């Protein structure tokens, strides 16, 4: 099953490599990974999406917790949560394609963030399925380049992951 694990990590050199190293050492799978400092600059927030049996996920969270620089973590998929991913896509846009792409971007509530005579650069945010769907909706062969941020997530309501 797909899980989103959110980690508060000491913002120190090498801390990220320990997290990534743990996944490869123990044969766990990383689907996406995002990391950036938080409002408290001594801490980073890291979100990793992974998949595995309940037993594997339990081991992942326990092994992550053992890392000295991991301050706290939560499996967001255990409760109600919001997840977002940002995608930038360059698509071929000439002639009638231009109007069609604009329509598709509107449907996905995306934005065209850069334009020239032959290319649109589109920004789409949402959960990962939505971004996949956008790519499928754009006619085949017109996608030139895709950049995705990986998933960021946060629990709904009053639950917070902080010190």
């Amino acid at each position, binding site marked *: 099953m797909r899980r989103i694990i959110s980690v508060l990590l000491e913002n120190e050199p*090498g801390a990220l*490599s320990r997290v990534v*190293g743990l996944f490869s050492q123990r044969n766990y799978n990383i689907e996406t990974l995002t990391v950036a400092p938080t409002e408290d600059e001594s801490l980073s927030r890291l979100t990793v999406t992974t998949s595995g049996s309940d037993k594997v996920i339990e*081991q992942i969270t*326990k092994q992550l917790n053992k890392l000295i620089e991991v301050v706290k973590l939560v499996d967001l998929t255990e409760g109600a949560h919001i997840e977002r991913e940002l995608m930038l896509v360059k698509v071929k846009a000439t002639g009638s394609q231009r109007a069609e792409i604009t329509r598709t971007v509107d449907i996905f509530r995306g934005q065209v963030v850069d334009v020239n005579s032959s290319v649109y650069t589109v920004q789409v945010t949402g959960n990962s399925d939505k971004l996949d769907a956008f790519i499928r909706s754009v006619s085949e062969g017109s996608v030139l380049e895709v950049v995705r941020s990986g998933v960021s997530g946060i629990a709904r309501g009053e639950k917070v992951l902080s010190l």
Partner: protein
Amino acid sequence: MELLSGADMITRFLKDEGVENIYGYPGGAALHIYDALFRQDHVKHILVRHEQAAVHMADGYARATGKAGVVLVTSGPGATNTITGIATAFTDSIPMVVLCGQVPSVLIGEDAFQETDMMGVSRPVVKHNMAIRHPSEIPDVLKKAFYIAQSGRPGPVVVDIPKDMTAPNERFEYVYPKKVKLRSYAPPVRGHSGQIRKAVDMLMSAKRPIIYAGGGVIIGGASKLLTELVDRLNYPVTQTLMGLGCYPGTAKRSVGMLGMHGTYEANEAMHHSDLVLAVGARFDDRVTNATDKFCPGARIIHIDIDPANISKTVGVDVPIVGPVDSVLTDMLALVEESEIEIDQAALDAWWKKIEGWRTVHGGRYEPSTQDSIKPQHVIETLHKVTKGDAFVTSDVGQHQMYAAQYYKFDKPNRWINSGGLGTMGFGLPAAMGIKLNFPEAEVVCVTGEGSIQMNIQELSTCNQYNLPLKVLLLNNEALGMVKQWQDMNYESRHSYSYMDSLPDFTKLVESYGHVGMTVNKLDELESTLEKAFAMKDRLVFINVYVDPKEHVYPMQIARGSMNDMWLSKTERT
């Protein structure tokens, strides 16, 4: 206020931390620190012949005392040579601090001479590692290193020290930090009382109980408490390879070691039990055999300080996360208060069954003859000659299993071996670390002619520091355990498991300044060992030629249950 250079801070900190001996090897990036060592006389440095041995020496000391061993090496090859030793300590949860020199900060990343990314290289085999980024951090980082290494589930900590951090002319304020602040690390201090209560109820109502005790009991300093619990309940106890000695091995309630080369009675008792109390053990694959066939009728209680060990390989019914000593203290109190009466009739029947199992194999082996000495016999003779009271280190292979099976350890911290990683070359330097710190004690390294040659250069260190330990070589002129597997699984195709062109060990050890003895005939065995151990002030290396065809039994049959075993070359369960 005291101003010290980074190098002087390191030696001063070690003194303030109570460290007496460190083990290491100098080199460019560590020279400021070595100069600081030279200018003080509190911390003694032992110069090994290979950095791996320095780590095993520190490890041997740590296993015998429970305190962190300390290693000092230079950057690059000095640091990478420690990796096997660090991994050995990591797998067996041994506290250790490894100080590594590093090229100056400005050169890091430039492929400088003797530069290796030790933080990256060591990362998968350490509990933690830290780099010094400013000399003023040294006291705090070192204090953290010792704290992390020795608390919770212990393990090795590497500190990477760029050369400019120890420059002699830059001085900073030194204060010995009494406390450590680490918001992201809080090892458990007590077990959950509700879980402990539940566990005691289950323990008292069991009909076929067994206590499965691991190395955590020894590392956690809980051997006395475990012994008290076993004796109070009159339950059988089995020990893992790492747990030998946590309960007296010659006492009746001990059914010996369990697992791959465990006793028949221990493996049968585990398999037929209705309750397993696992204490400081981690359900390792060399214990459980096939996990889906493990102890089919048993409910399992698991005490461990590391939550990641709970239900990692075998699912447990009642997990208790906490230090073994505190949890066992709580359990003992609850056992006294418990209103549940142990079913004595069931327990008697259980013991009767176990006594029956004891007679099935009973550690039997074909008797030695004048020209064919059995390795098991050598270990039993060693036990006799040393009155069962020596520190016994071992390398890895058949000799290790014979020592584990036939030297009945009555005390904890006396059996020193690389259980988890299985590191050949561990035994001699580990014995050196112990002999150095326990000069009055009998220390013997049981080894094979394969293993001993992996760190034999340390005989030179033994001479330099006058370490009169004993080396007992069970010489079967082959990599015995490999050969045994080839006999059993590969139709005796002995692919590269022979040991040709062996040195004349007697001449070799004599050239290092020690005494060599050889045993070929059975009637020389005991007298030679007596003679060797009577030489209190000399290192004696006893080369005993043993039956090269002998196998270690019992041996669990792969992918079977606990009690699927070979009992000899021809009998199986």
